[in-house]
């Protein structure tokens, strides 16, 4: 008996929560980056860069775009941040990636391999969330920088708009984190997460922002839009109505709420993954 215990290999201690999450991050970021979903992300991220390139080329060829639109480079850059990134790219990437963090593993029937590891199930979700954040941040933010370098010098100064660029990068990072956390929970909790996510961003958020009252406080966009340093465009009827009833919470309030939403939904998502039994279809 003594001999047997002496020859048996000691069981290594299970890694801690953060170490587990980082291992999952390391494993997942490559998978996430080279997945088919990245083609979709590349397309929507490339769109503003291509438009900026086209605008700049036409401007260099003497098309007088700035003069005809009466908008200098920094104003066009602000408009692009609103229209392309804040209203579309950040929520859409949050939905597509956030809802798939666990759902993809379930669909591929590979979740068993992760859950049989000696790590917390919640850490799997947190690690995948970090991978999502790394993947999207390293694709979206460079495109913002390229758009800034192309557009802002058109009757604007790079130096004068630098602080706004930094604010934009920070708020886009925060937006990706918060939307990702919200939809990670949706993906972990509900059966049709993509549909729910799309209804949330294109239905609920748009409608709630257009009504006066407290409803808009139950959206992510309300707090995120308060951080934007650029003027809000009111180019559509919905945008017009939203601009009438727009309220801007203060910076600390917005940041506190966004941090609260992110941590709450990430904790909820981890808790759901910890408790829920995922039945794989045969």
């Amino acid at each position, binding site marked *: 008996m003594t001999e047997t215990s002496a020859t048996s290999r000691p069981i290594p201690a299970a890694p801690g929560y953060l170490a587990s999450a980082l291992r999952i991050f390391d494993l997942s970021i490559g998978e996430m980056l080279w997945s088919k979903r990245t083609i979709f992300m590349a397309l929507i991220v490339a769109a503003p860069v291509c438009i900026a390139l086209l605008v700049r080329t036409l401007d260099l060829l003497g098309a007088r775009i700035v003069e005809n639109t009466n908008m200098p480079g920094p104003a066009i850059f602000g408009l692009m941040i609103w229209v392309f990134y804040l209203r579309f790219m950040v929520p859409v990437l949050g939905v597509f990636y956030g809802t798939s963090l666990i759902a993809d593993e379930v669909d591929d029937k590979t979740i068993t391999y992760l859950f049989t590891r000696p790590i917390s199930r919640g850490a799997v979700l947190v690690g995948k969330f970090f991978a999502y954040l790394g993947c999207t941040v390293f694709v979206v933010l460079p495109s913002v920088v390229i758009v800034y370098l192309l557009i802002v010098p058109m009757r604007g100064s790079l130096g*004068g708009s630098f602080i706004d660029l930094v604010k934009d990068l920070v708020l886009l990072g925060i937006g990706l984190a918060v939307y990702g956390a919200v939809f990670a929970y949706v993906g972990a909790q509900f059966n049709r997460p993509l549909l729910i996510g799309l209804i949330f961003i294109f239905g609920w958020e748009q409608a709630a922002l257009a009504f006066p009252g407290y409803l808009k406080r139950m959206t992510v966009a309300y707090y995120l839009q308060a951080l934007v340093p*650029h003027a809000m465009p009111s180019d559509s009827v919905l945008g017009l109505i939203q601009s009438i009833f727009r309220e801007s919470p203060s910076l600390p309030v917005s940041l506190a709420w966004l941090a609260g939403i992110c941590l709450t939904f990430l904790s909820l998502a981890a808790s759901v993954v910890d408790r829920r039994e995922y039945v794989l279809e045969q």
Partner: protein
Amino acid sequence: MTKQTRYFLVASAAVLVAGLGVGLVAYYGGGFPSLSASRSGPSELSYVPADATVVAFANVREVMDSELRRKLKDAMPPEHGQQEFQNLTGIDIERDIQYVVAAMTSADPRDANGLVVARGNFNTTQLETLAREHGGVVQDYKGKRLILCSEVKVENNEVPGLPERHPLGHTMALAFLEPGLMAIGSEQAIKSSIDAQLTAHSITSNAQMMELISDIERANNAWAVGRFDAIASHARLPEEVRGQIPAITTFAVMSHIDGGVTGTLRAEARDDQSAENLRDVVRGFLALGKLQGQNDPKVSAMLQSLQLSGTGKTVALSFAVPAEIIDMIPKMHDGGGPRPPMPPHAPQPPSPPQPEK
């Protein structure tokens, strides 16, 4: 993490760091605007004193040659004032003046010093003779020829707190600064202008104003920039009104006049919060205007051209009056006024009831 993933992340981070680095260098290095600022604006800015609170420019030739001017001329009844002015001074406003630069060197109404510098073709002999005929005195100031007119007392109807008649008026002066360059303004303003040019202490050495000018002077044939805070602090406004004035430091108005008019009003607020408040106010007015004007497509089209933009402390409102709107101005040649609207057609009398067969 695979090598491929690592390379991608490094390349992505490199783009991010490079872009931020360029922005940071531009931000701390004084930026590219200061490099271009010294070269911006018409050369006559060297005659505008450095402490000017408002500077304006108008390319008179371009405006006079514009389609808009032609349409307005067609629409308005013929007037003879321009011809009389030409007979007196020898200046044909439509052809002889290329552009003007105007400035206000003090915001205080007690000491308002206006200055207009005009570039063009002027008959100096005729102008000097005219000034002498009206009591003008010729004087030499640092090598420039000045014609001083007698002091004009100004009736005070608008400035509260000042006596009804007060020495607000200045000795007006006309100066021939260079061949083809003339200045009109108060004696003090003209002398300051000459000093500014000789000592190189002109508005071109004022980085704040030159940055504003460099931003707007290209592609606009009329513009004005100014320090709103300086004007507001000297304006004799009631306390109630003064408290409602937004915290604006500088303003810029720019427009391009051609077939129509396009332009932008831009204000620089004291801080981001003030700018956001101002944007909210403007946005509210715009939204209300757009909702009110939805029934009228012409008004709606015009209001749609109003575009609020701006970043950080900047608030900008651009507008466009297209040539189609200008075309709607009624011609005032016939009968001295616009044609009255046609009376509505008289309603047809009701048909008499038909007896049943």
